């Protein structure tokens, strides 16, 4: 990270369509399960990958906290509580350390925005709850996590669409690396809805209605027709290395490299040269060679242009020497949650020594060829892995984690 301090991960928590713990998520991924179902009429029956919006489960959060939370913030808070518990840090320690957080999402809460529009447009704005702002705000996931965990440090909420989660991880790591924080809870969250899936559909980037929705998301496949929107959250406890060692914390891995850039001209199109530069810069920031990477967790969302651009960039930087897969065939594209959520799965892959393949990838698109696609599980130890996240607006972010610290 080229900073003063080393940054390690000492806790993780998730809330997803395929599990509420990283272990459960791994088991479902390894079993080849898909979270994708057919949406209702409100979302034009498009394929979608919803996480359980379960009021009973959310009752684990006190009402005084929950009243300001839409599903995206509930997902975050549930994941955050699990990450805190996993870290072994106490409330007193968090306060003494001025622990902070960085959590982002695409647009706060689309379901709350929709409820608000409906009231305002129908002339009933006096019926808006005072909680509406807190549920819908772009930083709702971050400040609601801080309230839930009782964090009294800095609250950040990078709002960079589908790179929000990985940029939040990168920001938290940078703050710790620079000596400005000791503990940061970082991650991403999102909820899907017709505003999101419909926008992708208008751009011909969403998978169409299929007889079998579980086949809809096909990253890197010659038959892919677009992405499937999903939702969920993942939160990690990032901690300064010496502090973690001193308290005997369980260390999942070390964030050794991070970089984020843009092509300077992007709107919806991915830019292969900019992605390649981002990945190269990430390796440089880690001080390691691309040949040292054991696995790449691709962003690949199953869009025609995006997957091809990422494959081209991987081909340029890594050649065909590093196994690559995307978990969006299983989970759909969980948007702002995708980077951290998929990272949580990779830590479990490392624990099991098994790489999960890209679901629904049988015939690799020639435009995505020339890299080592995982089309079946592969046993391989992971010592260092690479994670990509990209977003509308030309945003690229990559991270390298080293295990067995």
């Amino acid at each position: 990270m080229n900073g003063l301090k080393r940054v390690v991960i000492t806790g993780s928590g998730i809330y997803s369509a395929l599990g509420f713990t990283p272990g459960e998520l791994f088991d479902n991924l390894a079993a080849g399960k898909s979270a994708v179902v057919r949406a209702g009429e409100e979302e034009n029956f498009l394929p979608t990958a919803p996480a359980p919006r379960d009021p009973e489960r959310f009752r684990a959060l006190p009402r005084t906290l929950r009243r300001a939370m839409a599903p995206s913030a509930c997902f975050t808070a549930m994941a955050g509580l699990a990450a805190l518990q996993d870290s072994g840090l106490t409330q007193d320690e968090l306060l003494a350390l001025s622990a902070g957080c960085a959590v982002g999402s695409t647009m706060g809460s689309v379901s709350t925005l929709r409820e608000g529009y409906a009231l305002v447009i129908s002339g009933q704005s006096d019926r808006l709850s005072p909680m509406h702002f807190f549920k819908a705000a772009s930083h709702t996931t971050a400040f609601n996590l801080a309230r839930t965990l009782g964090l009294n440090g800095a609250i950040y909420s990078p709002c960079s669409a589908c790179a929000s989660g990985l940029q939040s991880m990168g920001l938290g790591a940078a703050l710790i690396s620079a000596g400005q924080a000791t503990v940061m809870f970082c991650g991403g969250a999102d909820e899907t809805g017709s505003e999101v899936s419909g926008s992708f559909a208008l751009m011909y980037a969403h998978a169409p209605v299929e007889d079998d929705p579980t086949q809809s998301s096909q990253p890197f496949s010659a038959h892919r027709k677009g992405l499937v929107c999903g939702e969920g959250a993942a939160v990690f406890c990032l901690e300064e290395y010496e502090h973690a060692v001193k308290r005997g914390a369980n260390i999942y891995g070390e964030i050794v490299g991070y970089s984020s850039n843009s092509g300077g001209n992007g709107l919806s199109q991915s830019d292969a040269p900019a992605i390649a530069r981002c990945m190269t810069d990430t390796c440089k920031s880690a001080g390691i060679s691309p040949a040292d990477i054991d696995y790449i967790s691709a962003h690949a969302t199953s869009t025609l242009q995006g997957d091809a651009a990422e494959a081209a960039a991987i081909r340029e930087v890594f050649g065909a020497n590093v196994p690559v897969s995307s978990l969006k065939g299983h989970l759909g594209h969980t948007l702002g949650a995708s980077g951290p959520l998929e990272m949580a799965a990779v830590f479990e892959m490392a624990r099991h020594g098994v790489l999960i393949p890209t679901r629904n990838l049988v015939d690799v698109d020639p435009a995505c060829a020339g890299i080592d696609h995982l089309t079946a599980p592969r046993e391989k130890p992971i010592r260092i892995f690479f994670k990509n996240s990209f977003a509308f607006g030309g945003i690229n972010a990559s991270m390298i984690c080293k295990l067995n610290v």
Partner: protein
Amino acid sequence: MNLTRDEIIEAVNGALVNEMELDPADLSPEKTFFDDLGLDSLDMVDLMIGLQRKFGISLRDNEEIKQVRTLGDVYDFFEKNQAMLTAQAEAAKAAAAQAAQQETGK
């Protein structure tokens, strides 16, 4: 809105149980909203918005409702003012209908 005191108590307590997740056993008239029931000013606004919707009235510009301290104060407020609140709501509705008619007639 033409309710007996018992119906008012049922509606107000129902909102507190369903929306604020309070225990029905805690809901007695002498309880204060902030100290006894643990609510805050944002909860009170939410509660009033819910009751506005339930009763078909508007409390937005009512100064008296802003002074309530206990659950009994709220029961008393609605019992005493329901006729006036209903008249206000009907007048507002009629004015809105007239404005819409004039707009259509332009």
